Structure formats: C-alpha cells, structure tokens
C-alpha cells in the first residue's frame, strides 16, 4: 500500500504537557482519512507539525516514502500540502479570483496582474471538481458554503495534492455539508488525498475511508470506517462508554416567560436584519433557535440581553417590559446569558476564577457591602460553585482563567449564570468547541434548569444538539422565523429546508 504521508512515532512536548506522545498517522494516496479526537487530544499539534509550525521532538515524517524535514509552512506548501481552515481567510470585498491568486498573482507586462488568465484557470479547476464557483463574484456576496469552496480552490490552484480540512462543517447547512462531501469524494477520485479533522462522528462515517483516533496526546488506533460503528469510534475517542441521547423527560411548559413582539433590530452594518420578529419561550421548555450562522441569531440574543438597541417592538420577561432597560436591569430581572464567544464576552481571562464567578453579582450582598468587597464571602461563593459544578482548575479560586481548558471555562460561566437562578437562560452555542464529556455535562445542566421551571433559549448550529436537546425548534432565516416545530416531530431534512429559506410545510 502506498502512503503519501507517514508521520511515525511523533512526540512533541510543551512545558508541562505531552501534546503528542508517540503518535503515528499514515495517509494513503487517494483516501479520505479522518483524524478524530476531543479538544486537547493533540490533533492541532500534529497538524501544526505537518505544516511546519512546530518541530517534533521525536519521530520522522515521510512524504511519498522520502524522509523530510518540514521547517516552515512554505516547505509544507512545496510538498503539496494545503489546509482549508475552519475560519476562512478571505478578503471580503475581493472577487473569488483575486482571493485565490493572492500572494502568487500571475503577471503580464509592466507588472500588471493577469486576472483573465487566472480567472480562466479558476474556472477550469472549478469545473473539473464540480465546485461551481463564479470566479468574478465578490466574496461578500456568496454563501458561506461557496466561500468554503473558494478556500478549497485556493489549495487546488496551488497544486496541492494533500488537503487538510479543519472542522469544515462547523458553519454550513446540512445541505451544504452533503455538497461538501460530494466534493471531497470527487477530489479523491481525481487522485487527491484528504485529511479530515473533526469530532463529528456521523460525517466520518459518511465520507471517510479510514479514521485515526487520538486521546490525550496518545495514538489510540486506526480503523476502517466501514467496519466501525459511530459508538465504537466515540468510545475510542473518550476511552469510556458514552450515550448520544440527551436523557430527558417530556417538557411540561408553563406560562410564557419570554415574549418578543414585532421586534426589529439593526445589524452592525445598520441594516434592519431582524424585522417584525415575534417569539415566545415558556417556562419549563428548551426552545432552540436554529439556522445557519449569520441569519440574525446573534442580533436577536443581543437585543434580548440589552447589548444591542432595538429599533421597534417589545421584549418582555414574565410580563415585565424590558425593551429599553439597561443590561444590568435585565440581568437583575432574570435574564441569564451564556454567551457565544466565551473569551470575548463571557470571561475576563486575566482575572482569576473567583473574580470571574463574581462578574454578575460582585456588587450585591453578600459579595459586597456599600461598594466594599467582602472577600471572605466571595471566596466562599467561589469555592462552593467550583465543587458544585465540578470546575477543574489547578489553584481553586485563584486559578487564572486563561490557563483553564475550554470546557472548564464554560463550566465556570454556566455555574455563574445558573447560580443566579434566572427565569430565562439564554445559551448561545454553549457546547461549541467542547469535548464530548463537557457537552454531556452542559446538556444535563440545561435540562435540569428546564425541569426546574426555567425557560431556556438555545442557539445552536449543531444539528444533533438541536434535535436532541430542544423541545421546540424555531428556524431563523435572514432575521425571520421560518417556522416553529416540535423537536420530536421533525427531522434534519425539514429543518435544512427551512434554514435555506423555505417556509414550514411550504414551497418557495
């Protein structure tokens, strides 16, 4: 069997942690090879080594049987290794072609860029792999799925033979995911080789030929995908049995907690993204806003929490009008918020855990009296939450939050928000980038809140999470609710159509 890449017995150590411990990865020519592992399992380190960003402490890399030393990313490129990043690296107001040739612009006389030749070549490649990308379209005018295809084109334009896809399905619709999988198949049919980094088992099962699993920096094994069930792969990944189903009873919805009527909100470009949106969330239910990223989810959440001014309509919580109240007033009225971007909005990373746990309540008794902080009370609160929510940290309350893992940072936020016992808990992508263990825990906590009679508003892009965790699902498209369905009476296909802008139960 011919291997195009062999990474043999790679070990890479950082101060205090072995990121890769004797890891072996062999990619056959013309296969789709999945690299599976939880966060912190060492996937990124391994890929960074392949890409020349790190040097391995031990082990050898062979490309097409030849031992190589990849000193920097340029060397990696020269061996035909290309990477499609999770977050696209595109210039919004450039055309597709301009983006693709960036850095290697073909020239004609007087140093002018030869855009025609380039566009022609882009079109040819696009046709060859059926990517259907218009070389003259501007990036800002095309869909996210198409932008991803531009990233792929970028690699192909540079004659990449080995394509690394880093979590490629995080931000696209189910239909676009299917499309992407077809493209990946077509790429390998043309002799390319693909490394797919992901933690989504269903995709691995669908598209890949083989799958290598890493756990805590160690190599667990490589399996043929066709002979392995998703459950088996998950167990290899986490090292124990896990359940996919969120364990929950039927919901018992009570009174309306959050009521949004005819809401209009502008986005950052001063464009009325949300128009006339109405929505209700009841006590004791989890309502999920589902949709492709960028269709108004963030703006809606910011309008509810008070981070964004509203242009029209009303927002009320338990009958109390909050439309124009300050953030603090809303917090006190019972809005809890687990933000989408925990580093930017959820935490002060350079504060310690105790200070972060106090971020919403630091000014209230018993944490402070007349503006003076009661450090004993604050520490007591912090120690209690650390135990109650099982936040793992080196130095208990005085751990600097920056040094904690993503899952434990998220647990800290959840501890802080749930401990205030808010009537409405908004959870924006609460499990993004977390490993299965942490996801399980967070789902359990959200269901507990629901069972305690709180209203939970969930924003999620993960189909599995949407279907498993929520009681009702509202699909949002370009700032409008396309339809609201019961989670147990719908499927991926119906939701996918609504996400693409087709109303519930109807044609266009």
């Amino acid at each position, binding site marked *: 069997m011919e291997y195009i890449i062999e990474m043999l017995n790679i070990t890479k150590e950082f101060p205090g942690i072995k990121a890769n411990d004797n890891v072996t990865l062999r990619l056959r020519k013309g296969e789709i090879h999945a690299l599976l592992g939880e966060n912190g399992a060492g996937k990124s380190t391994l890929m960074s080594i392949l890409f020349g960003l790190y040097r391995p402490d031990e082990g050898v890399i062979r490309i097409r049987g030849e031992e190589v030393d990849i000193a920097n990313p340029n060397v990696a490129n020269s061996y035909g290794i290309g990477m499609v990043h999770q977050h696209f690296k595109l210039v919004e107001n450039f055309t597709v072609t301009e983006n693709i040739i960036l850095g290697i612009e073909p020239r004609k006389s007087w140093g002018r860029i030869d855009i025609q030749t380039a566009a022609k070549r882009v079109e040819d490649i696009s046709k060859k792999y059926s990517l259907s990308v218009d070389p003259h379209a501007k990036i800002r005018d095309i869909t996210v799925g198409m932008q991803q295809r531009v990233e792929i084109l970028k690699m192909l334009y540079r004659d990449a033979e080995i394509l690394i896809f880093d979590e490629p399905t995080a931000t696209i619709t189910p239909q676009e995911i299917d499309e992407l999988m077809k493209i990946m198949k077509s790429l390998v049919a043309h002799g390319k080789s693909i490394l797919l980094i992901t933690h989504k088992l269903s995709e691995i099962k669908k598209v890949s030929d083989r799958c290598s699993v890493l756990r805590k920096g160690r190599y667990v094994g490589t399996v043929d995908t066709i002979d392995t069930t998703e459950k088996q792969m998950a167990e290899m990944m986490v090292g124990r049995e896990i359940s996919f189903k969120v364990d929950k009873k039927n919901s018992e919805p009570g009174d309306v907690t959050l009521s949004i009527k005819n809401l209009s909100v502008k986005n950052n470009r001063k464009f009325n993204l949300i128009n006339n949106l109405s929505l209700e969330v009841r006590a004791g239910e989890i309502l999920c806003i589902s949709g492709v990223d960028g269709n108004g989810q963030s703006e809606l959440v910011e309008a509810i929490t008070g981070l964004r001014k509203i242009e029209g309509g009303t927002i009320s919580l338990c009958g109390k009008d909050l439309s124009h109240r300050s*953030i603090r007033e809303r917090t006190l009225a019972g809005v809890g918020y687990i933000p989408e971007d925990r580093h930017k909005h959820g*935490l002060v990373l350079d504060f310690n855990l105790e200070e972060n746990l106090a971020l919403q309540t630091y000014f209230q008794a018993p944490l402070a009296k007349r503006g003076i902080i009661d450090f004993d009370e604050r520490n007591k609160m912090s120690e209690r939450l650390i135990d109650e929510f099982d936040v793992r940290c080196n130095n208990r309350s005085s751990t600097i939050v920056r040094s904690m893992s993503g899952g434990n940072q998220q647990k800290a936020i959840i501890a802080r928000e749930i401990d205030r016992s808010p009537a409405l808990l908004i959870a924006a992508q609460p499990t993004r980038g977390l490993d299965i263990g942490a996801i399980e825990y967070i789902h359990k906590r959200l269901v507990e809140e629901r069972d305690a009679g709180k209203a939970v508003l969930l924003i999620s892009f993960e189909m599995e999470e949407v279907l498993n965790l929520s009681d009702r699902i509202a699909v949002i498209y370009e700032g409008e609710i396309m339809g609201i369905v019961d989670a147990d009476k719908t499927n991926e296909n119906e939701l996918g159509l609504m996400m693409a802008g087709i109303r519930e139960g109807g044609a266009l």
Partner: protein
Amino acid sequence: MINYLRAYISDVKNHKILIPIIAVVMGFLLGSLIILLSKENPWYLYKALIQSVFGVNFDNLGTDRPAFSIRRVGEYFVYVMPITLTGLSVAFAFRTGLFNIGAEGQLIMGAFAATALGIYLDYPAYILLPTVIMGGTLAGAAWGFIPGYLKARFNVHEVVVTIMLNYAAMYITNFLLKMLPGSDSLKTVGLNSGALLSSDFLAMLTSNSRLHYGFIVVIAAIVIFWFIINKTTFGYELKAVGFNIHATEYAGMKSRRNAALAMSIAGAFSGLAGVILVSGTFGYGRVLSHFENYGFDGIAVALIGGSTAVGSLLGALLLGALKASQPIMQGDGISKSITIIIYASIIVFIAIRKHISKILVKMGRTD
C-alpha cells in the same frame, strides 16, 4: 539549594517580583557597560547614586570635609514625591486600560489652582490648606475628565486628547499666572502662609532642604489608590474594563462611565502632584517655558512599578535616585544621559517581561 532556586525562578507566581528586579539589575549592568565603553569608571555612577540617596559622599571620607549630607536626602525626597503621584496617576489609568499621557497637563492645572487659591485666599492653615489641596485635586480631575468624557461619549482616543491638553494647560495657565496680582514674567508672588506645606521643622531636620509635609499627602494617595483598586467594587469594575471591555459590558457594568471616572481620578492624582510642588517645594507659582516632565516621568514610574500603588512608590524612588544623581556624576565626568539610558532600558526589560518569564521557566527546568 540549586534545586530550590530553580524551582523558585521557574514558578510564574514569583515573576511579579523577580522580573522587575531583573529588569533593574540588567538596566544598571547595561548602563555600567556603556560607561566602560566610553572609557570612564562605572563606580562614579554608583557613588553619585549613593550620595544622592543616602547623602554619603565617598570623596570626603577620611578628609576634614563632611562625608554625610542630610540635605541631599531631603532634596531626594522632594523630587520623589511629585513623580510618585504622577506615577499613581498613570498607573490608575493603565489599570482601566487607558493611557494617560496627560499627567503633565493635569499637574499644571493642579498647580495653577493651588497657586490662585493660595494667593487670593488668606485663612489659617487648617482652612486654607485643605482648600488648596482640594482645589488643586479637582482642577487636575477636571482636566482628566475631558479626555475621559470624550473617550466615553465619542470614542476619541485619550492619547491624542491628553497630549494636546498638556500644551493647552501650560499656555493657558502661563497666561493666567501672569495676571495674578504681583506676578512678573517668571513667577507669582509667594502663597499666603496658610497655604504652604513647607515646614521649618522638616527643613531644620534636613539642614535646610526643601523637604515638606507633602509626604503625608503622598502616603495618603498611595493608600487611596490601593484601597480603590483592591478593595472596592468600583476598582474591580475598573480592572475588569482594563482587561476586557466586552465582558464588562455584557456583565452590565457602565464601562464607558467608568472610563471617564478613571481618567478623572487619574487627573486628581496628578493635580495633587501640582499642589505639593506649589505649596510644598516652591511656595509660589511658576510660569513655565517648557514642560518639566513630571508627568512623563510618571509614565516611567508606572511602568516600572507594574501599575500598582506600592510599585509606583518604588519606581519613583528609583527614578528619583537616577535624576538626583545626575549633577553629581556630571561632576565626575560621566554624562547624565547614562541615567536616561538606564531607566529607558529598565522600561524595555519590563516591556519584554513575558519573554523574560519564558526564559526563567526554561532555566528552572531540571532536564
């Protein structure tokens, strides 16, 4: 022993203390090296420093001339006091994520207010002195509020505004100072005695240095700084804003209002520095032809002191020593620029503290 030392230097927790010490030592080593390169004797640098801080003159040891001068010690503290306050001013803004380059102008406004109040009003010290101190502090605070408000309301960058306000403060107060009764083109008349911080007692103790009661004001300011930053919810908010303004907005803090307030408080510290210059050091108002750099020295002080209260004091003691030793070392043929090189390089070493921290961790590893 070696292992203990390794463990100590590689523990990031100790770096807060260790790195400033390393920076200072490296700064002095670099300074000494430059003196050596210019074919002079580095000893003169240290001799000058010791003489200006402790008053001990090694040249006079064993001769008939006095080997110890307490007056120098007094003058040393006279210089340390205002830059401690401007250091606190810059440090306070730093903690909120703001860069206060305007300490110079805030100091000038504070000095002017103290001068005007001290000349126009004539009451006993127990009324007039608090009035003068409050007046100067408020003037500095008002001058700091302008960039703070512009930042909060219109998101105008505070660096631009404070730099311009420094000039505005100097030229406006020069104009106004000359209009005060009895002023000539260089200075005003002396303040009424009730407005003075100077003290015959302290002067007598330090054989006629200008040492004054301003040190009480300085100590109070240090305590107030420490209390606000470390003990109050307001300080907690300010620090949070300094680290991550997005998270504070999400947590419902009035981050913008806090920014404006923080600049006012920073201005208050600088204004206070102006007060002790006028009613302590000089006793009259001075028409300035150029900046005296107390405010800019405050930036250096805050950087060396890690933007903490006690750190600012230590930074000021260090910078004050370097400044006070300049005339002495020049007498021995060493350029005073050496002192500037030393504290500039200390700041550079502080600025690369993350890298130094990494090196220390590496050095401490036993493998």
